């Protein structure tokens, strides 16, 4: 009897110590930095000078920041560019979803691929490319317009410039949601409308769109959320004309001298609250009733005959691909390979004597470039391995065990969904900058911030691959007398390995792209590629910036290709959420 009681007690202690361990790790990664951000928002102090004092926390600091007209301007700008960008994204995304799923446009596979491709272009690179193309004075497009004698000019260094770039690059979010909703919708629903006497347009607006409305809203909110947290595009396009949005304003605050850490924390908190509210709304929409999900039913595709119009729809896709990928890549190539960006006349654009590898040589002659690549790889490897393992542990605990406290683990691990990368950066800055020990400024703080930032997506991906492993496979191992750990090692891990590997490679790619949180956490010794690229841009050397952009695009393209292989094409969705 006493032995049995001791056994129960032992098991209980063991179970609790596992969840306690997970909770401790999550507190370290998520809770503590978030609390510190809160503290930062509520005090007026500088943690580097004053240390941390909860005693002088009060709402006053936060309210002062709220009343600051600069904050209002940044918030207003953020809302304007994100709203504008979202409207364009919805237009493009919905149009292409309809073209791909519901029409007989030739080359629909190509259109589908074109609609997803922009996801893989890092926002900072897109911003740089479009600043080369569309800066009001030296932009390539303007130069060409001038040479061919047109009076028309474009200016990407403006609100509408940011809106345009946001809109075209974040259309895939709307596309992803709406295309799959359309695909899952019984075409008979639309045919019934036609039989009832409705024309194509009326059918579209009274049946098709209302039916996929949850998906439209969801994609719309997601693209808004992602735009709200993007730093690269507004930094590159907004800075020349002093347009601040929330993200760029937060970074400005920390780069003043002395840095305004507490104001930055307060603005970051505002950004987080807005994002949180939108994420909550989006999750509600997703779990709310959806009209179109008929699990496991395959519908015969319905292709509206467009007649000659189908060449127009194809042309739209070609133009889109040209605008988001071809033109920017050409611009980067021209800038990176031309000795001088100045274009005397159109023929000189094709004069091969004007081109050389000199900017690449200069790029790699700078030791900082090499260091940033090495640092990035180090951070990405640590993020991928530790993040993947942690996500596996959490995913297993939440989906597969009945351990006490697993709900708390689940909830805490999804909190970062609502925290933009930049805000995580500010939170980690607040959490560690005032503490001795050298954590702030090391490779590790970057890796940990990335792990926290991407935790929800990694856990979700792994949980779904874990759920595909039938419980009975595990139970069979228990019956054979294996213990829990031994079962995980011998059954679950081997079966889940493709999922784990896929999650790790995806983390690797995400870590390489990440800019927002790195901005606040790098030191001269740990600078990463994305930050260094921004550095080159701000240093004013467009050619070297373009060269480095191309280098990063190639590294990413290779890695995404590998990831896509490993995840069987799911990389887009994975990268999607994080911007």
């Amino acid at each position, binding site marked *: 009897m006493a032995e049995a009681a001791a056994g129960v007690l032992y098991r209980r202690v063991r179970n609790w110590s596992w969840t306690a361990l997970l909770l401790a790790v999550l507190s370290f990664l998520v809770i503590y930095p978030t609390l510190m951000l809160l503290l930062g928002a509520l005090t007026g102090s500088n943690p580097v000078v004053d240390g941390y004092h909860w005693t002088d926390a009060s709402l006053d600091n936060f309210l002062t920041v709220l009343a600051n007209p600069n904050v209002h301007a940044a918030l207003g700008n953020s809302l304007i560019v994100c709203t504008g960008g979202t409207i364009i994204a919805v237009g493009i995304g919905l149009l292409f979803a309809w073209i791909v799923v519901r029409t007989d446009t030739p080359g629909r596979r190509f259109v589908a691929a074109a609609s997803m491709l922009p996801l893989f272009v890092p926002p900072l690179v897109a911003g740089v490319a479009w600043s080369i193309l569309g800066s009001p004075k030296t932009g390539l497009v303007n130069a060409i317009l001038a040479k061919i004698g047109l009076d028309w000019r474009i200016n990407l260094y403006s609100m509408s410039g940011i809106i345009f770039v946001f809109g075209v690059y974040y259309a895939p979010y709307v596309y992803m949601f709406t295309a799959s909703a359309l695909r899952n919708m*019984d075409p*008979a*629903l639309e*045919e*019934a*409308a*036609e*039989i*009832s*006497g*409705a*024309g194509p347009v*009326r059918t579209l607006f*009274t*049946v098709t769109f*209302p*039916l996929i*409305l949850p998906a439209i809203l969801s994609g719309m909110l997601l693209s808004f959320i992602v735009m709200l947290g993007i730093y690269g595009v507004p930094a590159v396009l907004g800075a020349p004309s002093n347009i601040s949005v929330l993200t760029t304003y937060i970074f400005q605050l920390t780069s003043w001298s002395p840095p305004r850490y507490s104001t930055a924390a307060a603005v970051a908190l505002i950004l987080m609250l807005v994002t949180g509210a939108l994420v909550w709304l989006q999750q509600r929409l997703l779990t709310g*009733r959806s*009209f179109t999900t008929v699990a496991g039913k395959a519908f015969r595709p319905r292709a509206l*005959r467009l007649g000659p119009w189908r060449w127009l729809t194809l042309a739209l896709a070609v133009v889109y691909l040209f605008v988001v990928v071809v033109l920017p890549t050409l611009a980067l190539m021209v800038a990176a390979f031309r000795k001088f960006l100045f274009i005397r006349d159109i023929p000189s654009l094709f004069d091969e004597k004007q081109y050389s590898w000199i900017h690449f040589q200069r790029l790699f002659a700078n030791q900082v470039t090499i260091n940033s690549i090495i640092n990035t790889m180090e951070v990405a490897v640590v993020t991928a391995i530790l993040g993947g393992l942690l996500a596996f542990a959490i995913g297993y605990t939440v989906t597969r065990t009945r351990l006490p406290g697993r709900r708390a683990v689940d909830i805490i691990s999804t909190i970062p969904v609502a925290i933009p990368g930049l805000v995580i950066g500010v939170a980690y800055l607040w959490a560690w900058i005032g503490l001795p020990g050298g954590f702030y400024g090391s490779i590790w703080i970057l890796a940990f911030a990335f792990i926290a930032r991407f935790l929800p997506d990694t856990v979700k991906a792994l949980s779904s691959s874990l759920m595909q492993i039938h419980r009975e496979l595990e139970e069979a191992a228990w019956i054979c007398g294996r213990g829990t750990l031994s079962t995980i090692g011998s059954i679950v891990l081997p079966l889940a390995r493709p999922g784990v590997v896929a999650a790790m490679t995806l983390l690797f790619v995400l870590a390489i792209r990440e800019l927002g949180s790195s901005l606040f956490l790098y030191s001269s010794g740990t600078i990463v590629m994305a930050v260094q690229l921004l550095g080159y841009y701000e240093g004013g050397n467009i050619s070297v910036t373009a060269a480095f952009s191309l280098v990063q695009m190639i590294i990413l393209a290779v890695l995404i290709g590998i990831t896509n292989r490993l995840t069987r094409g799911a990389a887009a969705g994975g990268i999607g959420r994080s911007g």
Partner: protein
Amino acid sequence: MSAELKVSGLGKAFTAGRAVVDDVSFTVAAGEIVVLLGPSGCGKTTTLRCVAGLEHPTEGEISLGGEVISAPAKGILLPPRLRNVGMVFQSYAVWPHLTVRQNVAYPLKTRGLSRADMDAKIRQALALVDLESYADRSVTQLSGGQTQRVALARAMVYEPRLLLLDEPLSNLDAQLRLRLRDELRRIIKAVGLTALYVTHEQTEAVVLGDRIGVMRDGKLLQLATAEDLYNRPADLFVAGFTGASNVVPGTVRAHHGAFGEIETASGARLSAWLNEGTPVGERVMVAVRPENIDLVPAADAPNRVTARILERRYQGTHTIYHLDLYGARIEALEMGTAPRHAEGGDVTIALPPTLCWAYPAAEIAP
């Protein structure tokens, strides 16, 4: 308002050269219900969708009430919305974002009726399908049978010239299906609609249709009343599809009016209904239904023979005997809960010549 549907030489190929519907011609008189019956994939739905205008035929002509609505050779193709036909889809396709009333109102709205007219028509349609008290419910809260009736009301509310139904009962459970198929016929007849109905259920076809068309591989094999179909199947496929599962091979030896004398593998001769054009010496297949075999024949009954019982399968309400007859294995059915014959014994039976149908063996597709 019901109109006559005339389909002639209808052809449809999704990929060039492989016709899914091949030279199908039939007429549905105003107010008549015609059922297209056939195995899965034979092209029933495609035929129906061509009539609806949802599929574009590649050949032939379709006219409704005298108006040609589809004739690819002449470049005529009236879009579905202008055909004024009603359709009940297999999946019902009621719109989940609308209420029952809004679903039924939709086709009226596109026709620009006045409010009062609309309300009256909706009320009438809902009354017809017995759904008045559900008018303001969301359709997602309805049972399968109710959803089906919403689909029916929506298809009939604007008094279409023709009602098209694609297996409207196939998504319902067996009990409900029995009840609704009688109901469906009653409603369609009450309104007096011309209807084209697609199904692969024989009993459904018999109960619902005024006439039944049997399709196979895109071809319409026979279009006739149920009684003709069961007693005069046009070919071996129709015979087999409607349940004549026994087939006896033989050779034509003589003609006696509408009947022929067939020599079977066992040497015994058999009198069967035979097309007069079939030459003597031709190899034929004789089809006969298990329930048409006479197990208590009169002494002078034609085709009277004695056969060995190879196997007896007791089925509760009836018994199936497998007989060794004319060199083939033949099933015979005896009604009643008490079987009269034992396995291994002999039984004397007769095959009524009018219910034995001989078809040239060459006609049988591989």
